[in-house]
């Protein structure tokens, strides 16, 4: 299981979601993707996208102005 990081800082929603969606296509089930965002909207949009597409949110942390969302890749 690999861990990958996506820098989505300064991107406004829905771009962090789009970037996460595209990166996840390159990952395998069980891999972890860490998305670093600055748009507070990502705190809602990334988990919503994960829920409807079968991925799991492992954690959401806020450090200073950055939001770090860890996703466990799911899928069929």
């Amino acid at each position, binding site marked *: 299981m690999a861990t990958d990081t996506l820098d989505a800082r300064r991107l406004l929603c829905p*771009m962090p979601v789009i970037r996460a*969606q595209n990166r996840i296509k390159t990952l395998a089930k069980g891999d972890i993707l860490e998305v670093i965002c600055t748009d507070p909207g990502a705190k809602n*949009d990334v988990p*919503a996208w994960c829920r*409807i597409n079968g991925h799991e949110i492992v954690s959401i942390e806020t450090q200073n102005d950055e939001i770090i969302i860890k996703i466990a890749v799911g899928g069929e």
Partner: protein
Amino acid sequence: MNKQPKAVALISGGLDSMLAVKVLQEQGVHVEGINFYTGFCVEGHTHAIRKTDQKKEKRNNALWVAEQLGIKLHIIDVIEEYKEVLTNPQHGYGANLNPCLDCKSFMVKKAREWMDENAFDFIFTGEVIGQRPMSQRKDTMPVVAKQCGDERLLRPLCAKLLPATLPEREGWVDREKLYGFNGRSRKPQIALATQFGFDEYAQPAGGCCFLTDQAYSVKLGDLWRQRGSKNYDLDDIMLLKVGRHIRPRDHFKVIIGREEGENNFMNGYRKQFTHMHATSHNGPLALIDGNASRDDLELAAQLVARFTQGRDADTVQIEVNEKGNETPFTLDVTPLHNDDIPREWYL
């Protein structure tokens, strides 16, 4: 068809697409959603910029709709491809810089590509005849449908008023269980929403594109005029959404943050622009877009001083950071009086 039909829905996040999905789900169709991000979508980023809007729920309506309906949603970045649609619309613009007919045609064409790549059977939208003055008219709907080809574009909410499409003729969907909505009234949609038990939905057919907004279109038109071409990139169109845009001279404009959220957002563009802010008083961040001389910067500083807490002071100190020059300099300026700022400077 023995297998379950698979259809891809264009999801805007509004009520109509939500209803269209439900109508087909009720008929046993497997539905997944597709949502295109052009860069001009009001959805998403806009509420993240302004501090005053940050208290509002930051919900992406397309994602929310998909979750309510239990369908997957694929969000597609079409920013680059959309430039050709916006700058060279075959069917022209609407009341502002909205190329609605070309836009809808483009999205249907893209959805068709997605449908083919993912082995789906047909596309559908929440369009209603007469709902929109440009793209949802009985005479323009075939223009959009042509982009899909072989009659695989279904409009479940007004299908009964249109010729039968392939999914209807093949029996993948039952035409009798589709609808014949027509016109601008929202009553039939609201009644159907009630019937489906939808007690919450986004603004019915709400404006979801900045290009339909007059103030935004004026700023975009100004940008194109000054550049001498219709070029733009994502940063350009993002910055048109924030701040006061004031053009004192043809060759430069000043973008002044209106509140903390906008200042924070604009702060991310510091390195790309000459920028200035007051050091003697509280005030906004301002970006200078264009090639400003020292005299121009002095004028810009006077303008910016007008929007600081020192607007009535004799002198305001403005720190100027020129693009590409790491050493800032300070200008002591007298704020412009409101009467000294011609209305036509405001975009």
